[in-house]
């Protein structure tokens, strides 16, 4: 069953068409990532799904509700982590969570949520003394305290150091393991790659690609690059296939990796040549992404 169904969604701000007719579905229990450069329409799309914005055209169903008119019952079931959103700095995390828990008919115990996000040692400190990463964890805790079925994460790890990002990812994986549906926006390709079951790429208000991160833009079936270094004795022209030099190493681009490797290694063994530092790489998600968004 689909947690989110979007069809023909459009939204303009004056003359600016922020979202120009997009369609997608997110299944229950899925982690779905929305990628795209700034100004692509990601946040507008997510804010329509969260019920913050109206829409000009199209239909939207979130957990069976129209978020524009969802009301309390809709809000009971979604948790929202906004991008850079203010918080009552003069409360402590425990107080902020206790206050928010009071808004839900079936909230999780506050201490449990504090432990879950690892804020136990800061639970009674004023929020204004928290670091950026600790605040972001509190944002997450506030989104989780109502025990939602669907969680929106708008750029949840922006500004994190690599270790904090890793921890956040593991945490999102755990949420997913609890059966939560997660809609994530991010600038980080590794984040989408690591977390998302499916990825949608937005550019200029449109969806330009939608699929599993490994298959996006034909990554799994498209060509690969073979790179290695050779001793001087073998010239580029001796190779059994087309190749060129790329930063001091030999680069072979091929659509059929298996065959190319077989021919190449057979050729090298016959002549007793070492293919130093031999690597095979496919286009990264980032390469595909940059092609898609036209940068």
């Amino acid at each position, binding site marked *: 069953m689909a947690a989110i169904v979007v069809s023909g969604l459009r939204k303009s701000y004056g003359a600016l068409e922020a979202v120009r007719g997009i369609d997608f579905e997110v299944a229950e229990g899925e982690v779905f990532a929305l990628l795209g450069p700034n100004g692509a329409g990601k946040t507008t799309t997510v804010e329509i799904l969260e019920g913050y914005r109206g829409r000009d055209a199209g239909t939207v169903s979130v957990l069976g509700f129209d978020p524009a008119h969802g009301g309390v019952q809709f809000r009971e079931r979604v948790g929202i982590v906004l991008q850079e959103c203010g918080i*009552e700095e003069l409360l402590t995390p425990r107080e902020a969570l206790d206050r928010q828990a009071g808004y839900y008919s079936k909230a999780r115990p506050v201490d449990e949520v504090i432990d879950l996000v690892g804020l136990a040692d800061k639970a009674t400190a004023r929020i204004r003394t928290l670091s950026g990463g600790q605040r972001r964890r509190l944002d997450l805790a506030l989104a989780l305290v109502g025990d939602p079925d669907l969680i929106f994460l708008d750029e949840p790890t922006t500004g994190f150091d690599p270790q904090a990002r890793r921890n956040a990812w593991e945490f999102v994986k755990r949420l997913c393991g609890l059966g939560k549906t997660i809609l994530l926006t991010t600038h980080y390709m590794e984040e989408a790659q690591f977390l998302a079951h499916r990825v949608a790429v937005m550019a200029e208000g449109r969806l330009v690609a939608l699929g599993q991160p490994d298959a996006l833009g034909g990554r799994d079936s498209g060509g690969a690059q073979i790179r290695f270094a050779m001793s001087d004795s073998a010239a580029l022209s001796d190779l059994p296939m087309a190749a060129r030099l790329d930063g001091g190493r030999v680069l072979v681009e091929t659509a059929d990796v298996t065959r190319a490797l077989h021919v190449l290694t057979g050729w090298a063994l016959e002549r007793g040549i070492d293919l130093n530092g031999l690597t095979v790489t496919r286009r990264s998600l980032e390469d595909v992404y940059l092609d898609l968004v036209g940068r």
Partner: protein
Amino acid sequence: MRALALIAHQIRYEQKLYWRSPSSAMFTFLFPILLLVIFASMNVATRLAALGGINYNQYYIPGIVAFGVISACYSNLAIGLCFRRDAGVLKRVRGTPLPPWIFMAGNIGSSLLVSALLTVLTTAVGVMFYGVRFPGRYGALLVTLGVGAFCFCGLGIAITALIPVATAAPAIVNGLLFPILFISGTFFPVDPGSWLGSIASFFPIRHFQQAVFAVFDPRASGTGLEPRALLVMLAWGAAAAALAIRDFRWEPIRK
């Protein structure tokens, strides 16, 4: 029942926030007390001929009671809501199941508590140290302050729609308030027939000041209620509430 419990929950946290915030506690709570002590001490022996020779403080303390309610309702709500709106705090609240009207009720309830505290404190200081007489018109005091709180809470919420950025809020809120406080006779009597008095009669502050003074007026007999002044305040409050319901913004006006 659940709504009432939620409002109490909100008031509890609004109170924590109020007393922990140096700006709100300083400006909206201590300021009326400070003005009370300064002017009351300066004019201990002053008699007001225009008001039948009563002591200045018998006139001034009711004015400060009105000012306390205005400060706790209008200034506190307007400035506090603007800053929370621009910081994104209100947007976050809108993403939860808390009904918007309960959020507002919590804010208003907290302002009422502060108003009540200021009223008791101001009156007690007046009675104990400045020879002010409270004629025991508790019902009239409650009705008058209730109407005043409705009027000035409404204005405090409504004016946020006219304040584009929070950093401008203190200047706009106080810039409007203080000139009108002065011409309304809050600190020194202003002749109702004068041109200043006529201008002041358009705004609700003069009516509030006069209505509270009527409750304290030692010369008057009767209920101490000023129906005409209360009606003017109700009209202002209703207009403000309508504007607030139509135009209140939960997200920053300028991005």
